[in-house]
């Protein structure tokens, strides 16, 4: 029988990660440099790497994949660099400037700043055309649409070379008649133009969010369309059996067509698979409360899963653009291995947010970087192997790290080298801990109820220190940590969000019937979509949620409700779910108060069969390292002791005193090989530091279970 694969390709800022799951239970991780100028180039390079490693052709791999999955940053990059398409906006007259007015305030962090920069407009004012029309909150048409205004707008757009049009009217969400008619007219007059209609893309209340979401979508759609066409074609030519699935910021997969039409779902897909991956690696341990932390070269991403449910954001500012559609909640800080330590003019030690990036990189990379970074501190503290990373193939220069820390931090502060390095470590950890608090404590979750899952190449050195600071007792570090997001993508399901809005009080049978009808309506559309993609009744799941609030409140909260029929009898169940959620989020509920519904959302999942999970043999067998960094089973090995490849002095306290601690070769550890810290585990793509007071047990599922000693 031929080998079967599943391939995940996750483009990151510096590296594109490739994860190949083999039906033998082996999971392989490869990395190639990202190629932002021609994103498909990195895919070709990576496939060439895999092909060389496996000794087969790229097309043999692709044609034997049940699925090829791609997480892309083309949308994100276009938004960061403001290199999207030329957009025309058609909106209600009198409201042309909503994307300019925004929330009217100086955004977070800018309140003292006379010099704060205005946000770059995705549609310049001269391409925002107001149409005389007005629908009011009841859905009644207050002012009929003046169709000549739409025609004039189209003529203007044609003359200006507009490539993509967004339509968004006030209250279109209750009565989309005007938007639909305007869309017809645009299709008519501007055939071939990419069109985004606010009430279709994001049928939810709040005109600014809806317009901004539609504009962002329009801005990215032509770019995603082109990218998807190139990738789809490339894989088709290599003999892919199924269309490529793309990873979305909502944490699920989508086919290329959906990605082209709903491009705004693509913008932050990179870290969005972390919760899925975190849950997956925690499953063997029965843990469903998971915080994932992912430290890369320049940034630190945090996600949270409670009771198996991922925190989702709706209606947030992303890169200063308001985005309504659901996105996995990711808190990102400027803290990474490359974060630079510096002393401010008043003598305080600061870490980041500036980063040495990949080039010149930390001082220890020896590429000319002179600034002391987190990686340099970790090297001085003994956490990183002075012989180099990636199994020694990436050399590190400890003397350069020492020199940078000594001259820039230790001497100016009058500290020893070791104390300065530990200080850098402490402060960057403290920044990360404050970030973890923001996503946990501040949102009503006690971090002590959670497991900390380690993702990203640089996190392992900090993971027990972070857990200690947060009061978390259990840490899980997958051997695949540095490619965990790519792994998360290949175990994800297809996921589409469908929305509707119907503001009403939740009080009688009629309101219940109306909600049920609306759900059925949007779900029918979703089911048809998934069936066309080959899913069947058995493989389609539906999750319902309602945005609810107490009458008189301004903010609503999203409440997951079960899949029961909503009618007069089950209405109390719906209300109860809301009261409970409100208590969780805000500490109180008001059971005597009337409840109203604002928005309705159905999430449809097309369940994808999971690849065979990784498997680690028990510790009596010893795994022998291969040249390519992977390993195979060698029966009759010699036990835990053989896995210790060296000892190193490690520093775990502010006084700078070192403890001589063992260094384990991760590839030689088998399931059940328990040991206690202090220790270091070296995997090919990551290094894990175990502080004193913590113990490690490699688990058959391919993860290290690290627990605090009682």
């Amino acid at each position, binding site marked *: 029988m031929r080998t079967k694969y599943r391939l995940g390709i996750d483009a990151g800022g510096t590296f594109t990660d490739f994860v190949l799951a083999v039906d033998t239970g082996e999971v392989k991780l490869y990395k190639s440099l990202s190629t932002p100028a021609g994103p498909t180039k990195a895919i070709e390079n990576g496939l060439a790497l895999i092909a060389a490693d496996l000794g087969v052709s790229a097309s043999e791999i692709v044609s034997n994949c049940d699925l090829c999955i791609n997480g892309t940053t083309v949308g994100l990059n276009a938004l960061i660099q403001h290199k999207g398409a030329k957009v025309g906006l058609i909106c209600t007259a*009198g409201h042309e400037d909503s994307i300019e007015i925004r929330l009217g*305030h100086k955004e977070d962090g800018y309140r*003292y700043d*006379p010099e704060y920069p205005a946000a770059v407009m995705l549609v310049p004012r001269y391409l925002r055309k107001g149409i005389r029309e007005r629908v009011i*909150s009841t859905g009644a048409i207050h002012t009929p649409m003046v169709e000549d205004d739409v025609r004039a707008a189209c003529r203007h757009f044609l003359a200006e070379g507009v490539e993509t049009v967004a339509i968004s009217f006030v209250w279109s969400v209750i009565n989309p008649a005007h938007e639909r008619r305007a869309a017809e007219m645009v299709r008519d007059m501007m055939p071939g133009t990419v069109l985004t209609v606010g009430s279709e893309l994001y049928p939810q209340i709040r005109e600014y969010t809806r317009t901004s979401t539609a504009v962002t979508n329009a801005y990215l759609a032509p770019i995603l369309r082109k990218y998807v066409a190139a990738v789809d074609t490339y894989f088709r030519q290599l003999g892919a059996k199924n269309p490529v699935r793309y990873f979305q910021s909502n944490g699920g997969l989508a086919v290329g067509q959906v990605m082209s039409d709903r491009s705004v779902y693509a913008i932050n897909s990179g870290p969005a698979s972390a919760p899925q991956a975190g849950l997956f690696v925690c499953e063997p341990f029965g843990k469903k409360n998971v915080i994932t932390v992912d430290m890369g070269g320049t940034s630190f991403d945090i996600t949270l899963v409670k009771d198996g449910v991922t925190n989702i954001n709706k209606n947030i500012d992303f890169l200063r653009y308001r985005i309504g559609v659901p996105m996995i909640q990711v808190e990102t800080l400027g803290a990474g291995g490359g974060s630079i330590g510096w*002393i401010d003019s008043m003598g305080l030690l600061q870490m980041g947010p500036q980063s040495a990036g990949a080039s010149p990189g930390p001082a220890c990379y020896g590429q000319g970087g002179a600034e002391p970074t987190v990686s340099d501190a970790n090297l001085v503290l003994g956490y990183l192997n002075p012989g180099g990373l990636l199994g020694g193939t990436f050399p590190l220069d400890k003397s350069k790290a020492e020199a940078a820390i000594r001259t820039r931090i230790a001497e100016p502060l009058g500290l020893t080298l070791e104390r300065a390095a530990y200080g850098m470590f402490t402060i960057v950890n403290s920044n990360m801990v404050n970030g973890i608090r923001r996503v946990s404590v501040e949102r009503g979750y006690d971090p002590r109820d959670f497991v900390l899952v380690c993702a990203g190449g640089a996190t392992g050195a900090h993971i027990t220190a972070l857990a200690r600071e947060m009061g978390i007792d259990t840490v899980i570090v997958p051997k695949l940590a540095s490619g965990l997001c790519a792994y998360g993508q290949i175990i994800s399901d297809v996921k589409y969000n469908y929305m509707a809005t119907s503001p009403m009080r939740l009080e009688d049978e009629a309101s219940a019937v109306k909600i049920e009808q609306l759900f059925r309506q949007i779900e029918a559309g979703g089911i048809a979509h998934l069936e066309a993609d080959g899913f069947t009744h058995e493989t389609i799941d539906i999750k319902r949620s309602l945005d609810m609030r107490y009458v008189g409140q301004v903010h609503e909260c999203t409440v997951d409700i079960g899949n029961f029929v909503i009618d007069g009898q089950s209405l109390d169940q719906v209300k109860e779910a809301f009261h409970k959620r409100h208590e969780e989020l805000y500490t109180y509920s008001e059971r005597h108060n009337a409840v109203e519904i604002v928005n309705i959302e159905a999430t449809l999942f097309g369940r994808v069969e999971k690849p065979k999970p990784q498997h680690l043999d028990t510790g009596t067998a010893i795994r022998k390292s291969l040249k390519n960094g992977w390993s195979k089973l060698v029966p009759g090995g010699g036990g835990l002791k053989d896995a210790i490849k060296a000892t190193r002095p490690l520093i775990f306290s502010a006084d700078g005193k070192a403890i001589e601690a063992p260094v384990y070769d991760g590839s030689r550890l088998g399931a059940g090989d328990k040991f206690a810290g202090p220790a270091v585990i070296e995997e090919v793509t990551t290094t894990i530091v175990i502080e004193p007071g913590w113990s490690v047990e490699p688990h058959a599922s391919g993860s290290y279970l690290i627990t605090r000693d009682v």
Partner: protein
Amino acid sequence: MSKDMNAPAMAPIDPISLQVIGGALHSIAEQMGNVLHRMSYSSIIRESQDLGAGLFDAQFNTLCESDSTPMHIGSLPGYLRGIEKTMPLSEWKPGDCVIHNHPYFGASHSPDIAVVMPVFFESELVGFSANTAHHVDIGAATPGLIMDVPDMFAEGMLFNATKLYEEGKRSDSMWRYISNNTRVPSLVMGDLEAQVASAELGVKRFQELLATYGKATVLQATRQLMDYTEAMLRREIAKIPDGDYVAEGFLDDDGRTRGKTLPVKVTVKKRGDGVEVDLTGSAPQSPTAFNVPFEGSTKVACYFAFRALLLDTYTHDEHIPQNEGSFRPVKVTAPLGSIFNPIAPVAAEARFCQIQRVVDLIIKALAPVLPDKCTAGNAATLSFAAFSGVRPNGDYWVFLEVNEAAMGGRPRSDGPDTVEELMRNTRNNPLEDLGMHLPLICDRYELRDDVMPGPGKFRGGQGVVKSQRFLTPGFVTHESDRHEDAPWGVFGGKVGAVGKYEIYNAKTPKDVKSYPAKFSGLRVSEGDVAAYYSPSGGGYGNPLERPAEQVLEDVLDDFITPEHAKDAYGVLLVPAHNGYAWALDAAGTTALRAARGI
């Protein structure tokens, strides 16, 4: 007072622990602010985030503050000092919770109610956890806002160190009293509960911090952090040449006597690394509510001005802990009986327009010596509208709306359009949300098109127009200013535009009535449209030096007309080939600009 607080300072804390404790303090303040805005009911707190929260030591020094509206937090030490006049420190017990809003005992103004809880650690009072939030209605003479009222008793409920909880026991009679004396009890009571929860959280987290690092270490760290911020600000002040810097402007009127303008005079006396803001020469106190509480608002505005001007966080890489240290180098003087330091019982609720102008005039005064930091004249005002009415069932509805204005041109960029400038930083309300609950239709919410922003090398920001149409009869009160004295230009830049307020009926849109910036309790009928136009900022630098391409863009984007491009900027345009746009007449522009001396 705790013994420790008077004990000689211990040895300095190492810079690493200092940084960790500083980060933890900031994180606590952020959490307090988040709890407050997430739990509150009214849109002014929840959506606009018109609130502040922080921790204070037993000497009322600000240790940390939430990143919310700057006005609120700088005012809390004033509240604490005001409370002490009635309730000495020795009277505080664990579990107490006090509310306070008295304008003559340190409050910022009466709608900003503070909730204060003591922080005890090892049986000693070590400080306070406190927050303020703007309440929709405290039972004043007119719904939501007041202007032309006889005295402070018309402001509504005034609390002076009033206990909501005594040693953890809830004072039900007090809660009932408040509930019975506001027009919108469901909002106000919910908001108060949120404030209590936020203060409780601050107490708990502060105690945890003290337990983790030890009281002596934490308190020593807070002293060092305050010294640190103070030293940073003093260092910047020291760079300004010593001298007296003066700027003057005027306010429209006091809300009663129309046509009589009120002078505002700012003298910045800079000596060494300290500075005094002297407001002598400004108008005497008003007979209306148009006065500024000295402790809670006048001083705060001056603190803000120097923090923003000299330690702008966008241009400074360094993190600046926000604490008492930024207040210390600034001394504020205003004669008793003046608009900035009124004498009770005159009302002092409507104070924001005045202090915005103080900040703007401080910038103007220092412009000659800080050309690299100052801006041209900002809108420096406030548009605070209270819309209200009575529903068919007899319940009141009250909605407070804050409208954005604009900033002046800046040393390196245009003034931002439609933004909450200077001391304010609240958020707007989603129109569809309002439409669901209030009998209002928003006809227009866009950039002004009736005036042009102040010309300059860097032009002023453009103001906003917001038109709200009443679907049922109601009331409007409006607190604003700057219908008379336009934002100035600087270094060759030209003036911006004044604001205006118009009311007309949707059926007779041509029959427009103009209103002054301040009026109270105006009755409006079904179909009446209340349209506010905010001022536009002044320009920075000679408009003839503005790149012609940017002038062209402003024409294409309808910020300015082709005629204005020619008159104000010396830029000539010709119709573009596609018939929908304009193109630059480069040769003509060069010639015209040369003729004008550039």
